[in-house]
């Protein structure tokens, strides 16, 4: 069965934007690995290239915000907002707890780019939370 998300124009735009951001993310990651790690690119171009994969996450947050703004169905809009709140709570809590653990305890260092990755995971957790409490997942995964 085709998802309702895939039929609506705002949902199609969301999926297209996500796909574009993922292409930029993977492309820039691949380029950084080759040009900086393998070929020793340095200076300003290396800094710019190293920042691009991280900036792809900015695109992700913008895309999610646009989905909320463009969604015409008020109930789905509520579900998306709840998903975002669950994801933000999870990611920031995980970052804070691990930060203090690293400060006071001998735990391994976690690279900062994992926190927005946990936010994306949190969107999925938010969908489960919506399904359990509101009877609908929100369709935004």
């Amino acid at each position, binding site marked *: 069965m085709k998802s*309702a998300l895939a039929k609506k124009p705002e949902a199609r735009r969301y999926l297209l934007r996500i796909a574009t951001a993922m292409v930029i993310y993977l492309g820039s990651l691949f380029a950084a690995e080759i040009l900086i790690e393998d070929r020793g690119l340095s200076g300003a171009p290396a800094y710019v290239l190293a920042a691009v994969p991280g900036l792809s996450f900015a695109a992700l947050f913008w895309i999610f915000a646009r989905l909320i703004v463009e969604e015409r*169905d*008020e*109930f*789905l809009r*509520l579900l998306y907002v709840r998903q975002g709140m669950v994801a933000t709570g999870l990611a920031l809590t995980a970052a804070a707890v691990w930060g203090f653990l690293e400060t006071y305890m001998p735990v391994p260092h976690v690279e900062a780019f994992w926190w927005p990755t946990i936010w994306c995971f949190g969107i999925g957790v938010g969908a489960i939370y919506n399904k359990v*409490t*509101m*009877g*609908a997942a929100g369709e935004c995964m």
Partner: protein
Amino acid sequence: MKNRLRVLRAERQWSQQDLADRLDVSRQSVNAIETGKYDPSLPLAFRIADVFALTIEDIFLRDPEEQAAQ
């Protein structure tokens, strides 16, 4: 807030999807409103009332507890 959406829909032999299409919302929205998990905004409540050719008060009923508290 309680509502008579399920009864009104059954009287017209509409599925949740039929009503959702008439309201231009998702089937999940209709289900959430029917089951009392979500109270619609005033504009959507007016649209629901228009679809059934009734007033908002004919469809949505205040909770007795809520009314008693006022």
